[in-house]
């Protein structure tokens, strides 16, 4: 009896904490205007959110844009399905690795989504009218009895409930032998690149049966392999420049005008290793997990396991700024290696004015660094501790020194709650944080518009 009374409680707890693997968000991306926000998950689904516009006349003050910070579900579709490579007897995961929006050219929106092997171009369009008044069919689509038709009518478009249609327009398959980790749309609006562990291909958005290989670092003998490509991105303004990062912690800037195959970099960005800090895991923690151009195109932001670094394109000797994200983990690398957390790939983002950088950490924490002051702040994306519209309070990880109330000890960090994926609105101070299967959207009410410097 006592057991029966207890078991529902236990089951309830179990269900509440259990997260379906397929629901884990694996990528987040705003479109160029920030009106749309797309997320991809491990189950191959894409969910698009649209920013809510307040209806006119309701508390609209002069000067306000009239947009609230609310995002609502706009559309959901299954982008990729689990696949199987019969030749190699390998299962291909349906997990969406990256989503990138194309610049909008007409009423429809286009986005690229990719899993490990295949990139797809999706058209997202709205339909809010439908033709009514057909001659041969009735409203339900059934054929009319011809004898009842006495006159001809012209169908007219009538407004209807908004319908969002998502259709695959292109499928770019068989371009990659290894796992695709990045896609990046070129500023020319016509091409994009896709990068896997050893190669980078350039595609034309309209051509699916061919791609152009622009980087190939596969050694003749795989036994000589020493590094892989971890991320790649086109320059925001120069359509001939792109950058890719490697597992050795180096960045390579390539100019496609110099040669067709950009195996030889135009610039190599590398920070000399500090021999005093050498450990078993030096190679792992120096591997770059994400690289992003600044909006200005002048700087690069990279993330490795413990730090975030800002590089000046004009200086390849080392980063101009280094931010310690969670230095307190340096002494825990061995256990993080055992539980595989050391392989987590954190993303990093710029704000719209390139004055603040943001990246994720563990325990649902994420960090923002103000480049001007060099100071960092730790915030938490956790529903239990923040109600909607509540102000996020800063958190601190206690790793020695004076302990304040609310500090979290290093040993009580929850390493299963990791913030890997995030996005920053292109023009406003709105951020989207993916925490496992939840999406948090935070807005800076004090400074909603980014101050341009």
């Amino acid at each position, binding site marked *: 009896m006592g057991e029966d009374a207890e078991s529902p409680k236990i089951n309830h707890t179990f269900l509440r904490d259990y997260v379906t693997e397929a629901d884990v968000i694996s990528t987040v991306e705003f479109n160029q205007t920030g009106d749309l926000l797309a997320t991809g998950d491990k189950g191959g689904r894409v969910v698009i959110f649209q920013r809510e516009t307040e209806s006119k006349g309701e508390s609209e003050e002069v000067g306000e844009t009239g947009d609230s910070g609310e995002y609502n579900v706009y559309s959901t579709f299954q982008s990729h399905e689990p696949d199987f*490579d019969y030749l*190699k007897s*390998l*299962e*291909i*995961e349906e*997990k969406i690795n990256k989503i990138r929006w194309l610049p909008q050219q007409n009423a429809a929106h286009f986005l690229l989504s990719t899993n*490990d092997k295949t990139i797809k171009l999706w058209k997202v369009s709205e339909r809010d009218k439908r033709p009514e008044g057909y001659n041969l069919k009735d409203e339900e689509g059934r054929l009319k009895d011809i004898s009842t038709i006495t006159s001809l009518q012209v169908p007219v478009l009538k407004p209807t409930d908004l319908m969002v249609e998502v259709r695959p327009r292109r499928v770019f398959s068989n371009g990659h*032998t*290894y*796992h695709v980790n990045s896609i990046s749309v070129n500023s020319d609006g016509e091409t994009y690149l896709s990068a896997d*562990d*050893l190669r980078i291909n350039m595609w034309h958005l309209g051509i699916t049966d061919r791609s152009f290989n622009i980087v190939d670092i596969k050694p003749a003998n*795989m*036994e*000589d*392999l*020493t*590094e*892989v490509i*971890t991320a790649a991105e086109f320059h925001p303004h120069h359509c001939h420049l792109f950058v890719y990062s490697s*597992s050795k912690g180096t960045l390579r800037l390539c100019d496609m005008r110099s040669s067709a195959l950009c195996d030889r970099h135009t610039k190599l960005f590398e920070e000399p290793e500090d021999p005093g*800090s*050498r*450990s*078993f*895991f*030096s*190679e*792992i923690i120096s*591997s770059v997990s994400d690289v992003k151009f600044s909006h200005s195109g002048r700087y690069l932001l990279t993330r490795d396991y413990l730090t975030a670094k800002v590089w000046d394109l004009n200086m390849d000797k080392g980063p101009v700024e280094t931010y310690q994200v969670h230095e307190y983990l340096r002494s825990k690398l*061995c256990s993080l*290696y*055992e539980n*595989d957390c050391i*392989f987590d790939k954190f993303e990093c983002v710029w704000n719209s004015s390139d004055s603040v950088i943001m990246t994720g950490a563990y325990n649902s924490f994420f960090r923002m660094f103000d480049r001007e002051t060099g100071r960092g702040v730790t915030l938490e994306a956790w529903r239990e501790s923040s109600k909607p519209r509540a102000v996020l309070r800063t958190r601190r990880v206690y790793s020695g020194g004076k302990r304040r109330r609310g500090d979290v000890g290093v040993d009580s960090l929850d390493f299963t709650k990791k913030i890997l994926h995030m996005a920053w609105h292109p023009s406003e101070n709105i951020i989207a944080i993916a925490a496992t299967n939840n999406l948090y959207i935070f807005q800076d009410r004090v400074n909603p518009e980014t101050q341009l410097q």
Partner: protein
Amino acid sequence: MISTMECAADAQSLISISLMKIHNSRTQRGGIKLHKNLLVSYVLRNARQVYIKEKYAEIYRMQQYEEVMTVCNEIQELNPLDLDAEDAEDEEQARSACCSAEESLCGAACHRGAAQPVAHARTASALFGCSPLEDGSKEPDPCYYRSCCMEPSPVSHCDQFTANSNMHCNKTTVLDLDTHVVTTVENGYLHQDCCCDALQCGQGAQSPARKRKVEFGCCVSDVEDVSDFTAARKRAKREDCCYSNLDYTDTSNISNLISIFGSGFSGLLSRQSDLEQICSKQVLASLGAWTRAIVAF
């Protein structure tokens, strides 16, 4: 090189953990993740370096003690001939350090094999040839071991001490998961780094008075006639040199590690506890399977 915080004991567990990760990655959904396995192989390499370093340091310490004992024991064998031949002895030491591999295997084989003659018989099957022993040493020691995969190195022993020797080093490394013995085949010479005396040898001795004893069970090859401590210090320098040879440079690459994967993996699969299997042709040939697996996807 590696931070002194990490000791050899951790290195051993890291090696095990890393190999287990690689083993598990083969059955993970989505195929083998090249990036992750590459990073794991780096940890494996680093752990191995520390492990070997610690082992050799231990051996060196042991050897120091043994030498002191040897001096005391063999002090009566001193004669004018030996003193004059001190220069020859230095050269001998240079060669001996290079030849340490053989001695280590001698010791190891003796230690590991079920019985000494059995061990010799088995290792003999892996031999291409045997360097003749000039001194008519009483023990029928197995001498130079050569990797089945590599050309016999015609390089003279002293050349191996040049600074560039590492660059031309051809290394294949094999790890036995059950006994945690790392076997390195380097330029045709086989090292084994588990509790064996790597540095004492007196191959091709000039002096007939030199005796070589291969002791069974304590892994020490007692070969040197030490006339005084000066000679011992000189030997110490040679040994340091030998250590630096063993510090694998960045040219150590995944090929070494794939050798580890191959033997470790087949060890996991077949549960072979027989150490000799590791040196056998079959295991070295099975490395190809791992290479193919990594290339194939």
